[in-house]
């Protein structure tokens, strides 16, 4: 039971971080129809900036400055990079963000090197917050959870209670009409893109020291974020939340409860002593298949229900 | 006269909005039939239902007695129905010749063949050439379709439709946006290519309609309010009201 709750807690944590990423991506996609391939790259930038700033100044300044920096870069990318490509169509926009992801990874490697950075959890949060049923819950992780939930609540409040939020909600589902009503759609786009990237940056700041800060982090996390928003449903923030937590918890559960698939394969007549690939198949367990699971779900969802669980529009 | 196309109580809703509100229509084999009506009446929607672009909400559409409603566009086309589009829908990067040829390929059995040269297929070449002649574009056969003038593109639009040699030709506002002389050319071309076929046309230009059609149906707010020969339609009170006197000679 303790394992269950512990996995649940960590899964929730991972899921909330995924949600920070997914929410930014959803906002950008819903508003502009662009699937930002480079979204996880802004996550990576957030982590690296946070590392440098926290090494030079401190963690709290990093938490404030890094996301802003990332957001500004995002806004500039939108204005000078994405907007000119818009006239060539969605495929061109997708290719642009793909190239951008590649570029950011190379730049990061060139500036900070290929080795993982020693981005530490801040000392003042490095203690056990509480112990429950024999398992220690780290203070930093509680902090991560609080920050993510706090941002989610703030996002929800802004979207449903403020004028800006209502405009964004309108643009989320009917962007052409919103433009026709006289709002400066171009500026809204730029701000949205920047803000979405800033959200990714925050995720990088708080997650970089836990997940590891290295050039490959964008490539590892990026596709998972796509999985999340496709399963949740494009255009749906609620769906992104549900799917993020689902994927996060699934990942930790699969690893903790290392369920063996041997019984399933023995039904097919495959047993572990058959050698070669059959051995590999028979010895599959939920733990070693955990990396594959999200993609399997992605493919299945795209084949059978492209609009996802709660989606309002097709991809 | 047998009916080649029959619509029976066809309805189409988009969400809560009813666009087609119970249409009954019979197109006779070999006739030239025009559908007219004020803007927003649902004429293009009707064509889209017939050609398979949209599924019907209820009702039936039959082609030679066989159901075609809710079929895919290619299934319907293979049964002998060809349609053109109000907003020009050509292949802009291909030459005029190639545009027409694409329309020809399936009907002449080329299907997905990837083991022979398309240029060596005599039947394909001949039919493409003859359509090219009929629409008067032989001189511009190698011009990329995107570079053509508007009137030429409209002619090409019809040319592609003719590719599959359909028995039932449906043209959606073929002369839209054309000048007088261009319209006259287009009309004589349409008359010629539809000689042994059945033709259904949507048009706004009343001169074209009254010069071309054997029978006219009037569609207003998703319903057919009259179907008759041109003279009777001209003098029909309901029709005149619907058009607010916009009927011109």
């Amino acid at each position, binding site marked *: 039971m303790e394992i269950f709750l512990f996995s649940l807690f960590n899964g929730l944590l991972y899921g909330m971080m995924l949600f920070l990423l997914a929410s930014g991506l959803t906002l950008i996609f819903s508003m502009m129809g662009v699937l930002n391939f480079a979204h996880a790259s802004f996550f990576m930038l957030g982590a690296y900036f946070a590392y440098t700033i926290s090494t030079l100044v401190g963690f709290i300044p990093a938490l404030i400055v890094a996301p802003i920096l990332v957001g500004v870069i995002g806004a500039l990318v939108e204005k000078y990079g994405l907007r000119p490509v818009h006239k060539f169509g969605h495929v061109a926009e997708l290719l642009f963000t793909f190239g951008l992801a590649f570029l950011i990874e190379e730049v990061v490697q060139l500036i900070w090197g290929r080795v993982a950075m020693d981005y530490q959890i801040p000392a003042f949060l490095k203690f056990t917050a509480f112990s429950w049923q024999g398992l220690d819950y780290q203070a930093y992780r509680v902090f991560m959870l609080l920050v993510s939930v706090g941002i989610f609540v703030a996002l929800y409040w802004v979207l449903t209670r403020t004028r800006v939020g209502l405009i964004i909600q309108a643009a989320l589902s009917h962007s052409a009409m919103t433009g026709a009503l006289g709002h400066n759609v171009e500026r809204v786009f730029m701000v949205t893109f920047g803000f979405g990237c800033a959200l990714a940056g925050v995720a990088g700041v708080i997650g970089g020291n836990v997940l590891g800060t290295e050039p490959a982090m964008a490539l590892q996390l990026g596709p998972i974020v796509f999985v999340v928003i496709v399963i949740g449903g494009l255009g749906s923030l609620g769906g992104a939340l549900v799917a993020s937590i689902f994927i996060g918890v699934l990942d930790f559960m699969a690893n903790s409860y290392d369920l063996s698939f041997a019984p399933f394969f023995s039904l097919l007549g495959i047993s572990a002593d058959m050698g070669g690939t059959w051995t590999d198949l028979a010895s599959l367990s939920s733990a070693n298949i955990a990396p594959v699971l999200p993609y*399997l779900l992605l*493919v299945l969802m*795209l084949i059978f229900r492209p609009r996802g669980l709660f989606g309002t529009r097709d991809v | 006269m047998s009916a080649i196309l029959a619509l029976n109580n066809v309805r189409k809703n988009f969400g809560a909005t009813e666009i087609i509100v119970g249409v009954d229509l019979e197109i006779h084999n070999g006739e030239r039939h025009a559908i007219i009506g004020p803007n927003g009446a649902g004429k293009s929607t009707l064509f889209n239902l017939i050609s398979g672009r949209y599924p019907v909400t209820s009702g039936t559409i039959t082609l030679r007695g066989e159901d075609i409603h809710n079929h895919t566009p290619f299934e319907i086309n293979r049964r002998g129905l060809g349609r053109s589009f109000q907003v020009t829908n050509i292949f802009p990067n*291909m030459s005029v010749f190639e545009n027409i040829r694409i329309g020809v390929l399936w009907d002449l059995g080329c299907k997905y063949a990837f083991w022979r040269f398309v240029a060596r297929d005599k039947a394909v070449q001949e039919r493409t050439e003859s359509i090219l002649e009929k629409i008067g574009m032989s001189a511009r056969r190698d011009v990329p379709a995107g570079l053509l003038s508007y009137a030429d593109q409209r002619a090409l639009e019809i040319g592609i439709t003719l590719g*599959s040699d359909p028995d039932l030709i449906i043209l959606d506002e073929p002369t839209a946006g054309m000048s007088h002389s261009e319209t006259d050319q287009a009309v004589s071309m349409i008359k010629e290519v539809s000689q042994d076929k059945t033709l259904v046309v949507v048009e706004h230009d009343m001169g074209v309609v009254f010069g071309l059609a054997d029978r006219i149906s009037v569609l207003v707010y998703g319903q057919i309010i009259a179907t008759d020969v041109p003279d009777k339609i001209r003098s029909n009170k309901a029709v005149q009201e619907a058009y607010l006197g916009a009927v011109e000679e």
Partner: protein
Amino acid sequence: MMGNAQKVVPWLVLALLLVFLPVWFNSSFALTILSRIGIMIIFAIAYNMLLGQGGMLSFGHAVYFGMSGYFTVHFIGGMQDAATPYFPISLLPILGGLIGLILGILIGYVSTRRAGTTFAMISLGFGEMFTALTLVLVAFFNGEEGIQADRWVGPEPLGITFGPDIQVYYLIAIWTFIAVAAMFILTKTPFGRVSNAVRDNPERAEFVGYNTQRVRWLAFALSSFFAGLAGALYAVNYEHIGFETVSAATSGLVLFMVYIGGVRNFLGPIIGAVLITVLDSVLSDFSEAWFLYLGVIFIITVMFAPEGLAGLIFMHEPIWKAKPALLRALFVPYLMALGATLVACVGLIGLFELFYHVSQDLVVPDEMNLFGIVTDTASVLPWIVYAVIAGVGLFLCREAYPRTKMVWDDVISETRAALVQ
């Protein structure tokens, strides 16, 4: 008529190049590059069957390339252990192609039911799935190490063992010729034309009787066949296969090649494959930042030249055909624009390399070799020099580009007038 001769000449040129290039460039380094170019040409044209010809953007096409490679390596290994029957090495690409084909049929069936961005994401999903599987199914993939094989196996007809690299090169050359010819012929078939039509206007294609999903599925399957063919040659050439051959990195590389080369033209992927393979082999020794420059070139292509290099070249085709004399008017503006760009590049790359060299605060000497000049990065001088060069170059570009555009606009409108009489 000139028609028939004109059609045969390019193929003669290709054949001559394939046969004689290793004779003219006879170092083993050159041979390695040439072999790689051949493989990449096949892979790139195969990928363009999807992207340029069929309008489908895939981020996971390396799956067919890599899986065929794995299969081929296993097969060769099996031949040595006498576990699999003998099959001539020279014909292995056919088997590799079949592996690609089978995978392409299966995966293509589900992928091609959707189009556009959804299709791209499904391809990414499958690509990531296979990449993840390489670390899970260890017996088949052997994880990060990959699998070795020795191609020197079986009887030796005419003394050909495929042991020496030169023999493998000519094997690759022959298959390159066959594959390029086959894929070119495909574009001239009914399928090829309809595939283009589905790319340009899928809706209209449906209304003239074509099931567009079937067309795309077939394109996907055929493309996977040739990708598999390339993968088998890769395995024979390098005698090793690793997980990177199914990964997003390889899928991304072929995408870069094809897009920069030009998707709209049959020559585009060839140009891209040759250019990027050569640059990769040559430049990666000189600069660690080569991949960064590649990324910049890709982005510039997406933003300013979406038709790629081939597109830029063939943009001039109507002029050449209608009024070739006009080409002379473009000569000087092009020269000036090119010169300005070159100056700007030297400056910017110089600055960048200096910066990169300095940012690596490992035990690295201050001196570096930049553009063949021994440069002291600690002194201010080189920074100033390159900054000035960059500034001058950018200024010249600002002057030259609009002028070139103006001349181009004039030339093209004169050509249009001559064309659409």
